[in-house]
Each structure stands twice: as C-alpha cells, then as structure tokens.
C-alpha cells in the first residue's frame, strides 16, 4: 500500500459521515415542527394559566409558555439556516453559470473583432 492509500484510509476512517440523503430537508422539517409546536403549546399554556387560581400553577404554565416560545424561536432559526443554505447554494451556482455565459460572450466578441453592445447603456 502506498503512502497515499495509507493517508486516505486514515483520513476516511476519521471522516464524520452524516447519514441520510436529505439532511437539509430533515432539519428544515424539524425547524418547522419546533416552530409550530412552540407557538401552539405556548398559546395553550398561556390560556390555561388564565383559568387557574393557584399562583404556583400559573407560574408553571407561564414558564412552560415562555419555554415554548423559546423553542419556536430556535425552530425558526433552524428553518431559516437550512432554507438559506439551500437558497445560497442555488444562488452561487446561478452566479457561476452567469459568469460562464458572460465570459463566453466577451470571448466570442473579441474573436469576432467587435466590442459587445451593452443593453444597460445604449
């Protein structure tokens, strides 16, 4: 086995492989569920607390309500994080494609011995 293979084997063994083909999709779904569940449970807990007379029960319900609101905020952050990752990857690819096309037009124009006409500045 050559050095390269030894190094490859060692590095591959240490590789952090996360399973599942649609990791972003799962995280997005988890974010939506956390967001929805957080808002619903927070609202229900708050409504229940209004019908209680014992201050300790009210405190418990309010703590639950605030915790669920925090969960909703975390869920929203997770959802945005993975939505943006997907969007930004697409945006980067589109940018690269547009750059390719732009340079192709420039090179074609140079080859043809003329300056390209800009549509923005007639």
């Amino acid at each position, binding site marked *: *086995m*050559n050095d*390269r*293979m030894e*190094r*490859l*084997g060692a*590095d*591959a*063994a240490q*590789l*952090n*492989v*996360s*399973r*599942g*083909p*649609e*990791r972003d999709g799962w995280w997005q779904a988890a974010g939506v569920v956390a967001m929805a569940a957080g808002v619903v449970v927070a609202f229900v807990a708050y409504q229940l607390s209004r019908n209680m007379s014992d201050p300790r029960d009210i405190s418990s319900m309010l703590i639950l309500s605030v915790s669920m609101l925090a969960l909703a905020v975390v869920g929203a952050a997770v959802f945005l994080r993975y939505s943006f990752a997907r969007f930004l990857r697409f945006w980067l690819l589109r940018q*690269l494609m547009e*750059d*390719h096309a*732009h*340079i*192709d037009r*420039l*090179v074609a124009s140079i080859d043809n011995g003329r300056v390209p006409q800009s549509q923005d500045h007639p």
Partner: protein
Amino acid sequence: MSELVERTRNTSELVEPALELCGVHAAYGGIEVLHGIDLAVPAGAVVALLGANGAGKSTAVKVAAGLLAPTSGSVRVAGHDVTGAAAHDLARIGVCTIPEGRGVFPNLTVRENLWMATQVAAVTGGVAGVERVAFERFPQLAERRSQLAGTLSGGEQQMLALARALVTDPAVLLLDELSMGLAPIVVQRLYEIVAQVAREGISILVVEQFAQAVLGIADRAAIMVNGEITRAGSPSELGSELSSAYLGG
C-alpha cells in the same frame, strides 16, 4: 460482493480498493438513474467507466464525489464507508473531482484558480508551492498565469482543472468527460498526463463517452447502459462489447 466488483478489482492488489461503489441506487427526485451499480477502483489503477450519453456515468461520479447522495447502497473509500459524506469533506481527504465541462472559475486568473486549491486542502509550500508544482507539470499554464481562466482554450482550461486537482496531492481522481469539446490531439495530450499521474500512484476513475480516448491508458473498464453496469473487465476483453453498448443490441 458481486462478480462485477470482483472483475473491476485488480487481483494483484491485496489492499482495499481506493474507491468502491456497492449496490448504489441514485435518483433525481423520483426518477431513478442508477439501478444498483457495483464498481471498484483499485489503488493506483485507472478504471474507465464507458457508455453512451445518458447512461448514468456522470451520476455515478457525482455519487462517488459526494455531490449526490445515493438512495441506497454504499460508497467506500479505502475500505471505509463514506456514504453520505459531503463533497468538500471527501475533497479534503483526497477524493478529488474534475467535473464535466471546464471546471474552472472563469472570472479568476490562472494563479487565482490554483490558489483556490489551498482553500480546500493543506498544500505543501502554500501558494508558492502550488504554483511551482502546477507550472512544473504544465509549463503552458505558467505563460498564462495572469490570464483569466475563461479566456483560455478548452484544453488549457482542462489542464488548469487538472493542475488545481493535482496540487492537492489527491489519492483518488474522478475525471468526468475530460475530452468534452476538445480536439483529438488535445485529448491525447491530456490522457498522456493522466497516464503519468496514474504512474505516480493516484487511483483514477475516468468517465468517458469516447471510449477510444481512454482505453489506451485504462487498467480496467466497465460499460454502463441505462444506469446499470453490464460488463466489466480489461480493456482488451471489452472491445467487442463496446459497439453494442453504444448502438444497442
């Protein structure tokens, strides 16, 4: 392990293959493109994956490179299961892909394209080391070091993509349609470089539509038809199979 995997393995190699696809199924949305392919790239060997347009060759490369997760089956690197690993992680450990088309950043100069390699892998000698290694192997690029990559000829762009890959000292190289849009003499020159790289011990999987371009340097070859590997063996064994793979029947 299937017979096809065994046949694509070099029997003289006692070590695990550098790269192995085992029963890989892959799909774009609901459309399955790979129907359980088995393929092994032995350490230090050149394996050619051949087939007509739309056979699923590039998809196989995407799966091997971590750009597309298989729906089932596994990808193994040096005997370790890396199924689902991200492409940048695989690149970092030495599985380097040169994608179909030009594969360079057209609006960066030749030097800047090479510098990008230092962002992915720990390169000996840093930026200066990258340039020295690349320009020693490709003197043609040295003359154009300050030129925008998009203004290079097709062959020079492929050389740049190869140079950028090689400066990271990869263990496995995945080449997707290296000959696309290039003149035969340029293709011949590029495959001479690939053969030289293989002699240095880098394991190479070459995907090619034009079989003759690559069979001269390949140790093993496999023919892909409609998302399945129908035949694998040495290039001489596959000669008669090629026409039916491309023309049907």
